Structures are given as structure tokens and as C-alpha cells.
């Protein structure tokens, strides 16, 4: 039978992990017949996943059609194993005893005379066992195939180029309305009064105050005229003047004129001491 040959390497593969030794000599393959030396039994049992696995092995080794299991020899062999286990005082998993009972039950039922008309496929006492064996074998082979698939971490690695985040540290985004919100919370907390009210017009003066201070920081001294840009319209001229006056009032700049109609100069207050 073809599948018997196919089943052979299955055992060989899995057993290779725990080497079976007989009289100290490693046993490369599973025994080819049903005789298992007592020394090897314990290790061999560890190689089986349970009674279904052992049963499957026995059936496969005898080149039997799984759908036509001869119950008597199978049951006998199985019970021999159970005896051996008992003789060796091996911890006998309950599952093995259940399986032995099941085999004996099937065997006894098959010995009973039956009326031919009643016997159908599903009444075959072996049917349930066959179904379980088939399903187990299917899953056992599937497990082997799954194990053969290339596995991440074992057979291949995922790549992971380093992502350089240091150069692009994420900075908080600020929306203009966040600023208004911050101001609102300030007001609420401090109950600030009139002088903290800021209008668009005042803001424009304040913006020009900063601009003029920047200019003066760069040039130290500027002639009054240089600070005005008529090209930007009358409104800007007015605001610039207001900014200069405000800066002078806050003594942030000094405005000097040596005489009437002489040029007017603006410089940062006490800039010379810097």
C-alpha cells in the first residue's frame, strides 16, 4: 500500500529528536516490525502522541488498509504493549487504557453473529475508530506540512531598516485659535482688565514695534526716514509712527535730533553701552 511508505518517514522525522537507544546503541529508525525491545519502549512511547498515534503506527507498519482493520491481531498487539508498559511500571496514560477497552469492545462485537440485513456500513463497529484514525492522521500530516512551511523567525527574517527619527522630532502644532484660547484662559484666571484687551489695530502697532527693534538691533542707528516705507500705504506709515512713539514712550528706543530740521535718528536705548 502506498500510504504505508508515506507514513514511514513521518515517524522517522519526528522520532529523530529523541534518539531511541537499544542496549546503548542509537536506533536510527523506528522498528520495522511490531517487536519493540523493552529498553526502547519507554522512549518510543514518548515519541507517540497518544493511543491513536500508536494505533496508526501499528496499522501502518502492518501495511493494513485502515478501512479494513483486522481487529483481532491489532487488539492483541495493543494489549501486549499495555502489558509491557505495566511490567515496566510506566506511567500509563488513561487514554491508552480507554483505547484498549475500545478495541476489545469492537473485537467482541465483531465476533457476535449478526443478521446480514441489519449490517450496514455505519453499523460496522470499526467505523467510529476508522473515522477517528483518519481524522487524526489527516491532522498529523497537516501538522507536518505546516511545520515545513517557511516560518518567520525560524527560516526567514523580516527586514527592519532603521527609521531615523532624530532629525524630525515631532514638534507640537499650534493653531492661531490655540493662542486665543490661551489668552482666554489667562483672562478668566486673572480677571484682567482693560489694558489687556488687544485689538487688531494695537496688534499691528505691536508687530511694528518688534520689527523696528529688530531693524535697530541690526543697524544700531537709523534715520527716521529710513524706517518708513511709503510704498506700503498710508495706514502702514501711521502704524509705524505709532510704533516709534510707543517704543519711545516705553523708553525702548531713543529718538534724537541735533536741531530743527536736522535729521532725526532712532537708536536702541543705551545701545552704546552694549
Amino acid at each position: 500500500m502506498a500510504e504505508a511508505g508515506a507514513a514511514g518517514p513521518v515517524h522517522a522525522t519526528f522520532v529523530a529528536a529523541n534518539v531511541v537507544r537499544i542496549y546503548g546503541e542509537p536506533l536510527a529508525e523506528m522498528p520495522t516490525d511490531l517487536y519493540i525491545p523493552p529498553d526502547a519502549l519507554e522512549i518510543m512511547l514518548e515519541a507517540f502522541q497518544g493511543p491513536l498515534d500508536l494505533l496508526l503506527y501499528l496499522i501502518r507498519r502492518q501495511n493494513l488498509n485502515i478501512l479494513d482493520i483486522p481487529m483481532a491481531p491489532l487488539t492483541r498487539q495493543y494489549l501486549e504493549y499495555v502489558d509491557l508498559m505495566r511490567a515496566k511500571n510506566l506511567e500509563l496514560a488513561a487514554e491508552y487504557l480507554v483505547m484498549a477497552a475500545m478495541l476489545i469492545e469492537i473485537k467482541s462485537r465483531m465476533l457476535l453473529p449478526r443478521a446480514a440485513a441489519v449490517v450496514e456500513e455505519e453499523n460496522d463497529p470499526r467505523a467510529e475508530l476508522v473515522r477517528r484514525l483518519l481524522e487524526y492522521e489527516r491532522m498529523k500530516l497537516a501538522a507536518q506540512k505546516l511545520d515545513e512551511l517557511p516560518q518567520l523567525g525560524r527560516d526567514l527574517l523580516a527586514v527592519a531598516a532603521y527609521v531615523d527619527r532624530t532629525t524630525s522630532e515631532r514638534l507640537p502644532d499650534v493653531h492661531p485659535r490655540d493662542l486665543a484660547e490661551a489668552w482666554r484662559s489667562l483672562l478668566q484666571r486673572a480677571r484682567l482688565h482693560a489694558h489687556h484687551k488687544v485689538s487688531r489695530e494695537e496688534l499691528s502697532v505691536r508687530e511694528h514695534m518688534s520689527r523696528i527693534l529688530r531693524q535697530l538691533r541690526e543697524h544700531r542707528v537709523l534715520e527716521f526716514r529710513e524706517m518708513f516705507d511709503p510704498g506700503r500705504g498710508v495706514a502702514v506709515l501711521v502704524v509705524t509712527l505709532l510704533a516709534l512713539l510707543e517704543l519711545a514712550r516705553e523708553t525702548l528706543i531713543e529718538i534724537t535730533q541735533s536741531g530743527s530740521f536736522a535729521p532725526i535718528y532712532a537708536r536702541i536705548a543705551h545701545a552704546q553701552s552694549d
Partner: protein
Amino acid sequence: MLNPTEAKRIIEAALLASQEPVSLAELKRLFEDQIGADTLRRLLGELRDEWSGRAIELVNLAGGWRFQTKPEFQPFLERLNPEKPPRYSRAVMETLAIIAYRQPVSRGDIEDIRGVAVSAQIIQALESRGWIDVVGHRDTPGRPALYATTQAFLNDLGLVSLQELPPLEEVARTLELEPPPSPAQAEPAQPAAG
């Protein structure tokens, strides 16, 4: 607007920088949805071809696209990281197979098929690997948890979907060689039944 070569370079960088598969939807986000799915798929195909001669390949998995080393180069790469990940035992792999092919299943279902008790460690090993998770509970006494495989399971085994699992049919066919025994044969077939 980016030209296709630039777009490909950016896709390549994004995929090379990500350990997890990157989905088409995520790749679209890379370009603020300015590049359509069809174009992306074409670029990914080109990229895969460009990489074909190397030790790293671009593969399409359940979770999206991922660059990964080719298994045949693993012997070299293992020299860098001598600690090999543990191979899963037969018990773990059989449990995984049952969950993969028969999902959703309870621990009891798995025990029925394997014929032995399934230890909590086995389930736990698969859960902590992220390969299985609880997808529900069966409405029977004790409300046993029902397990199924995850997308990470597919990704880690190089699969796009469960349909790509190795087929089971083959196994079944080799076993159904002969008709079930006829009633007449039932007894004579077992001469040793004493």
C-alpha cells in the same frame, strides 16, 4: 506630483522600514491617497521583480506586503544570531493544525481528534506567539472557548489566506482506496480473531 520611480523608492523605504506587513490601504496613505490601488499594485509588482535576484524578497501576505529574507540564506544569517528560535513540538504543531483546519474549535474538540489531553501550555504557547486567539464561546455547559488562527499566523507562515494552507484532500484520497468491508467479509477476514 511624484514620478513612478520616486514613488517606488518611497514604497520601498516604507516596506523596508516596517517589520510588519504593510497593507495597500496604508501604502495609499503614504501618498495621501494621491496614488490609486491599481498603480500601487503595479509598482509593487515592479518592485518585487527588481528585488528578485537578491537575498531579500518582497512577498504579499495576509496583512499586506513585506520584505523578508529568503529561507535559503538563513544558514548565513543564523551565524549572526546563534540562538535559534525553539522548534515547536509535535503536540504544539498538531494542535495548531487542528485549529487551522477545523477552526473554530474548543480544547475538547482538539482532544477528541488527538486522542490525548491538550495541556494549557500548548494553547498558551500558540496564544503568546499570536498565532491563535479566542473568537467566541460554544453555547454548551462550561461555555468552552473557541480558538481560531490569526492574521499573524498567516503572515508568519507566508500565507495570504487560510485557503493557501496545504490541502488535506490528498491525505483522504490515499486512505479511501478500498470499499468498506462487506458484511459477508466481516468475519472471515479475521482468521486470527480468537
